């Protein structure tokens, strides 16, 4: 890392540390009781004390989130490719995709939980529904936004469909797909957590949402914060990972990678 980049990475770390310190100071100076607002130090302590159960839940939530994200990626790209090949198919199926997208997941989740026996499968479906639309719509736009002159060039040289897809359409769609994936990553986590709230805290295999619900029933505010911290950290991790992926895939040639 060069010196200016290291400095640039330091800025958000410093601002986050400052915010945490201010939080801690306000709680201590004002004497705010922990059942209203726990100090960051207490949240960390609670996290440490409940590490076993929280880590298991965390792993479960991560499993649902990334499972859904992978499904969204595969499903979104496959459907977008099919739509790119056939306008008729797109007209026939796109309304369903939009209906799934605009209906709030909290409203669908209870039904899916009734229809699907396995809670894990139901949560996976919910998170998938939320996450797949950005991948679908972005990839579709990407596939359709290939440079028309390069399209002509492919025609002029008599490229096959497969050559056109491999050498022109797929690389043209990649920046759009990556942008969609950045959105879908966050949405998959939201979908996983929201669906679990709808499912309620039950069963052995449960995620962070169930820990938050449990803690709220018992008014264990510090534990709610501890679970919430893990959710937030997961989201930040997904964001950083998708940025890194974007740089690795587009770094050298796409304007977005050259900032």
């Amino acid at each position, binding site marked *: 890392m060069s010196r200016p980049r290291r400095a640039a990475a330091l800025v958000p770390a410093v601002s986050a540390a400052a915010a945490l310190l201010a939080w801690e100071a306000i709680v201590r100076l004002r004497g705010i009781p922990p059942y209203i607002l726990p100090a960051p130090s207490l949240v960390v302590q609670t996290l440490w004390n409940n590490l076993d159960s929280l880590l298991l839940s965390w792993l479960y939530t991560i499993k649902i989130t990334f499972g859904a994200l992978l499904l969204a990626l595969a499903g979104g790209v496959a459907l977008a490719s099919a739509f790119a090949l056939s306008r008729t198919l797109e007209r026939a199926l796109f309304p369903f995709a939009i209906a799934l997208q605009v209906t709030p997941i909290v409203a669908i989740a209870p039904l899916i939980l009734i229809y699907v026996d396995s809670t894990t499968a139901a949560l996976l479906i919910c998170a998938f529904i939320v996450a797949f639309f950005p991948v679908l719509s972005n990839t579709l736009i990407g596939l359709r936004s290939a440079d028309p002159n390069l399209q*002509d060039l492919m025609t002029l040289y008599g490229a096959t469909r497969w050559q056109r897809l491999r*050498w022109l359409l797929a690389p043209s769609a990649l920046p759009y797909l990556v942008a969609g994936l950045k959105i879908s990553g966050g949405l998959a986590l939201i979908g996983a957590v929201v669906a679990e709230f709808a499912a309620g805290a039950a069963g052995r295999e449960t995620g962070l949402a169930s820990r938050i619900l449990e803690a709220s029933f018992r008014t264990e505010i510090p534990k709610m914060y501890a679970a919430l911290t893990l959710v937030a950290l997961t989201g930040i991790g997904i964001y950083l990972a998708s940025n890194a992926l974007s740089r690795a895939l587009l770094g050298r040639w796409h304007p977005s990678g050259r900032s």
Partner: protein
Amino acid sequence: MSARIELAEVDKRFANGVDAVRALSVVIAPGQFVSLLGPSGCGKSTALRLIAGLERPSAGRVQVGAAPADERIEVMSYVFQEPTLMPWASVIDNVALPLRIEGTALRPARDRARQALAAVGLAGRASAYPAELSGGMKMRASIARALVTHPAVLLLDEPFAALDEITRQRLNDELLALWSEQAPTAVFVTHSVFEAVYLSQRVLVLSGQPGRLIADLPIALAYPRTPALRLQPQFMQHCRNVTEALECGQLATAETRP
């Protein structure tokens, strides 16, 4: 290797009602360098796309070699006004693309692409990405890609219009050198009288929309042509002739407009 091009009574009307080309009849001999000149929107690019088989004539016939243009039995290349390089691929892979489409394996395709890049003076930038090149270099890469297949027909659609005058003149010389080496039939669309005269054996002047052929002027200047030619009286005389034809055409078009 070069092919004869023939347009016979070609009309092109687009679905939106635009009348781009009307009753265009031209025969271009194999290996000839011809410029298409006319005001903007006169259908010169459409004429070029018709020859490339990228558009079908509404009426008439476009023949390249022994077959209609869109059957593409002859190897054709096209240079656009923009360099039109794939931003995600290195320069050498951009130049190798036509060979890869033809089915050449990666290694021999890259070898030939390297030769083509050397011919346009870009040997040292083979592994660069298009975004890392200047405008002139990108256009050189685009020309290398057009010539890597040794086309029978080379079509150029105002390739140097976006470049500065010095780069443009240098690229004109380089293009002529490459053309005389490979000797494809070359059709060059431009709106610069000087460029048309400097490059071609023959200048076809089109009227404003719809494009009609209003003058077919031979340029009797010997090759190789060098920058000094631009200052000579015969060159000036040819430029004057072409300019007059162009202005007559605009007058005629203006008169026929209601």
